[in-house]
């Protein structure tokens, strides 16, 4: 009977350990990244098209290709603790061009989601949440703009949650379902006192 393809088990294990995992890697990280990002991160062959397309690369140490490698190697803590994780503008140029049809941008978003579960997140992201919790808008209206809108023949407040605050409880309920406001307030308070 033909032998199934592959090395003997002992060698397989050795290669597995040597090539893919170090003592600081989390073996199931790749799978969790793929589940969250819905992209085939493990297909990355490190061509560098992504980094070559990235507007953030020339002006920082941020390298999307490196994050792709970390995804494949299971280097969870190295990925989630790197401040460069937050320098992706989500321009999707890398995703647009990746020859393996991977979405590196979505890998970054998945890693950011995971970082947030460890409270690793810059506060500006959380402030957008609190703004929306209070008014429904990330960039709310102000008096100068209200006067301008009136001059333009528009309603002083746009016909959004601004004009119809009765829609706000529903929005708060959705955000509360995920305990988002509560967590945002807690983290902002920890950072800023």
């Amino acid at each position, binding site marked *: 009977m033909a032998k199934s393809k592959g090395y003997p088990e002992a060698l397989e294990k050795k290669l597995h350990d040597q090539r893919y995992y170090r003592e600081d890697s989390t073996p199931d990280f790749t799978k969790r990244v793929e589940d*969250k990002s819905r992209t085939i991160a493990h297909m990355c062959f490190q061509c560098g098209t992504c980094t070559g397309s990235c*507007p*953030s690369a020339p*002006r*920082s140490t941020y390298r999307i290709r490196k994050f792709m490698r970390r995804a494949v190697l299971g280097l969870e803590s190295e990925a989630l603790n790197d401040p460069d994780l*937050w*320098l*992706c*503008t*989500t*321009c*999707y*140029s890398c*995703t*647009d061009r990746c020859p393996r*049809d991977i979405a590196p*941008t979505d890998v970054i*978003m998945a890693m*950011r*989601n995971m970082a*947030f579960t460890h409270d690793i*997140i*810059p506060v*500006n*992201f*959380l*402030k*957008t*949440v609190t703004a*929306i919790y209070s008014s429904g*808008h*990330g*960039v*709310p*209206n*102000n008096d100068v*703009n209200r006067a*301008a*809108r009136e*001059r*333009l*023949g*528009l309603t002083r407040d*746009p*016909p*959004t*949650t*601004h*004009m*119809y605050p*009765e*829609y706000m409880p*529903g*929005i708060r*309920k*959705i*955000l509360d*379902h*995920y305990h*988002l406001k509560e967590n945002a307030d807690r983290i902002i308070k920890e950072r800023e006192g």
Partner: protein
Amino acid sequence: MSESTANHTFALYLGCIAPNRYPGVESAAIKGCKKLGIDLVPLKGASCCPAPGAFGSIDMNVFYAMAARNLVLAEQMKMDIALVCNGCYKSIWEVNHKLKHNKDLRDGVNEVLKEVDMEYKGTINVYHIAELLYNDKFVGVDKIKDSVVNPLTGARIAVHYGCHLTKPHKDREFEKEVMLNTEHPMWMEELVAALGATPVEYRNKMQCCGAGGGVRGYDIVHSLDITNEKLINLKEAKVDALTDICPFCQLQFDRGQIEIKEKFGVSYDLPVLHFAELLGLAQGMSPQDLGLDLHGISCEPFLQKVL
């Protein structure tokens, strides 16, 4: 000029930055589209899309649920959505597309929406206004040309396409195939030419404005440095104005030039106008009607050329 009776009606999804910082975009979109046979009616009670950079980074599930709520408001009106912002397109179009095609995501979202007596059904479509203007099924370049009473003759105008309308092209489903070209598109230039202006290309025109992904809030200098690179390339092309189809890009280029002056000591004084504002001008709206005085960078030198 043909003031045709409206034959398409859409729920206008406003987002945050257009109505709250550049209201001229809202009024020009409504009035300009009306002249082109499109009625835009308010999408009552809409919220932030939510901001894909901020919400997508924190928790994708909240991102889906919040965008779905806006979609359900339009479903209840039985109307397709039209919107004026690339960022909103990313949230509203993409979440609609994902929820239509993934039962697991849809079920997850509906479980949350049930708490607010809503259900996402997947019954409507989402369009960016630039797409409606370019696609002759709705408007098309010829009809725009016919609506021009004040051609922007002599003005050299560059286009900033932005990222989130067309990228990643592999996931997009535009009827007009040229809109899927993300390396060297020219369809926006056609729209600019329809207004009588001269479209001008420049180095690396498809580069991002630098504002997205929460980077503007996280590291403003890094973010502005990306914008500055684009401004250097635009200056080289000697343009009178830059046009965009995304109020967040507009904010980054317009208010951004003031911040760049403060932080890097360079000034460009390049007027930045949303395509809806340009359309309004060409259709005879006054700069006052468009609230152009609210822009951070004065549009005067450009206006003197075209009025």
